[in-house]
């Protein structure tokens, strides 16, 4: 394997180049060379036993902590990852990479095709969660880390963590799987489809070739984001946050302005998303989530795997008000692991914040992540 590392000074991110590697994708397509943008936090210890891979969700990136140069804001999980935080970077070496198909520096539809000066756009091959994890495993290998202590993620990140447990159990010790599922449900696929249709029906999208005219299908992408954002909240949280409060006015306008605060909020979410995310990437990554399905196969994969996986520990967390990845989906994983009498912990956290809870202030989430990591790490040190 030929790997080369550079630093993208503009993005303040490390880039790992995998050249002439012929990465075979689940679809059968082959990517001959690719790159992954990643960030690391903390220090790898001498025995290389303290590495944790954090997997980001659909619209996340490698900037899990610290400053994110793309948005100018704090990293997406800086509440959880950092010195003395639940994933303590004084103790652990944390790696987070932008997924294959993403748009924060890794190979994806917005990047140039190998050996050409044209971006992939719609010519990018379909990628799956399995493909993303395969690419991550090559990154970990090229960092000379034989075994990850933990793989952690929420939502699409949880899908990746589960895929690690299936494909590379011998290279990890535990996973923390938050607000995820064995499969993407029909309802979730339906919401994604509406989002994709919004993008593809934007006349600027032009079969994914909008970049040729330096344009962005802003309307489509922002509508897709607005729809998705609703699914990340809960009715209670929306009611608590907005109710029927009016935005910058005392009376309704009898028109179609953003009379209500909730409308104004969604419009803002859509608008700011367009500035940081690529429309084609959104199509590819939502599709990757749709294709995720271990409903029938998870138990068999774990039970009959060629790779030893008896040692794996699982922490599964769900949220009461998450209707996108409801508790029942997490419990299916727990049930299957219990039926194999594997070491699994499961907690349903009581909150009204919906699917987004894993990104928000939830003290109990902090406690279980910290405790699970600390105690299990103490055990390997013994």
């Amino acid at each position, binding site marked *: 394997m030929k790997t080369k590392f550079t630093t993208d000074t503009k993005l303040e991110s490390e880039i790992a180049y995998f050249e002439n590697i012929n990465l075979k994708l689940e679809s059968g397509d082959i990517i001959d060379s690719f790159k992954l943008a990643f960030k690391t936090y903390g220090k790898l210890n001498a025995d290389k036993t303290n590495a944790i891979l954090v997997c980001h969700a659909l619209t996340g990136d490698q900037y899990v902590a610290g400053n994110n140069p793309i948005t100018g804001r704090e990293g997406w999980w800086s509440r959880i990852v950092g010195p003395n935080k639940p994933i303590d970077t004084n103790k652990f070496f944390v790696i987070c990479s932008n997924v294959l198909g993403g748009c924060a520096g890794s190979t994806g539809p917005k990047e140039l095709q190998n050996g050409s000066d044209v971006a992939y756009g719609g010519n990018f091959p379909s990628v799956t969660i399995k493909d993303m994890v395969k690419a991550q495993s090559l990154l970990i290998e090229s960092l000379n880390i034989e075994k990850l202590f933990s793989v952690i993620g929420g939502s699409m990140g949880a899908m990746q963590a589960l895929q690690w447990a299936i494909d590379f159990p011998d290279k990890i010790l535990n996973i923390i799987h938050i607000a995820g599922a064995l499969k993407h449900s029909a309802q979730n696929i339906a919401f994604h489809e509406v989002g994709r249709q919004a993008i593809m029906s934007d006349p600027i999208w032009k079969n994914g070739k909008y970049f040729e005219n330096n344009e962005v299908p802003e309307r489509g992408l922002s509508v897709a984001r607005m729809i998705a954002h609703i699914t990340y909240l809960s009715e209670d949280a929306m009611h608590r946050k907005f109710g029927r409060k009016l935005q910058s006015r005392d009376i309704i306008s009898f028109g179609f302005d953003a009379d209500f605060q909730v409308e104004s909020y969604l419009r803002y979410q859509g608008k700011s998303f367009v500035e940081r995310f690529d429309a084609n990437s959104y199509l590819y990554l939502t599709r990757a989530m749709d294709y995720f399905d271990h409903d029938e196969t998870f138990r068999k994969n774990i039970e009959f795997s060629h790779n030893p996986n008896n040692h794996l*520990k699982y*922490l599964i967390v769900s949220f009461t008000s998450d209707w996108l990845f409801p508790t029942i989906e997490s*419990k299916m994983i*727990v*049930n*299957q692991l*219990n*039926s*194999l*009498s594997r*070491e*699994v*912990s*499961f*907690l*349903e*956290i*009581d909150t009204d914040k919906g699917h987004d809870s894993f990104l928000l202030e939830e003290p*109990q989430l902090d*406690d*279980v992540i*910290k*405790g*699970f990591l*600390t*105690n*299990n790490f*103490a*055990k390997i040190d013994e």
Partner: protein
Amino acid sequence: MNKINSIRKDWSLIETLITEDRKILDIGCGDGGLMEQLENNRNAITHGIELNRDLAANAIARGFNVVNGNAELDLSQYSNNSFDYVILSQTLQAMMKPKDILSELLRIGSKAIVSFPNFGHWKIRLQLLISGKMPVTESLPYTWYDTPNIHFFTIKDFLNLCNEMNIVIEKSIGLTSKGKQFDISESVTGVNFFTHEAIFLLSYKNFEPIKIKSSKKVFAKNSVIAN
């Protein structure tokens, strides 16, 4: 005995029933206190189920394998004989279907350990007899309308149920209200009268059951030498 001492006493007796290096499921494990004790003193591999979210979160944060769930709904997911011991401490009386739970315990575990407060204790009998009201005691401290304990039973009731279900009692320990410990199977008379709390080690082993002279209670031949 106060409640905490009584739980500690319960745990230390449960520990005496368990051999080294076993795989154990603790149902209603709280924050993992008993699991910790069995990991430290018996080198056990422990798993737990806890209904209360906060307690389950504590146990997980303390590093134990604990599933936040309801034993009456969630036990079916475990495979046959996947544990050496399944422990149900002080909760059988709070179950909707105690008989089903009992058979689940012995499906999942090779052995089950069940402990419960004896409703046949003389103080309870006396309270009901004299006051004519449902008894409220230290081990059953709730009023009738606000109690998690929905199935009251005595040692005699429990032994009859075990007999009916062909469950073998390998060992049984009784505690008086003063905390004095004795072997229920060896006691001659008045067991059901003086036992405040009882702890049983159960299995489905095909022992030839023998009858104890005092009553119709059924015990295994090896009840004394078990462990």
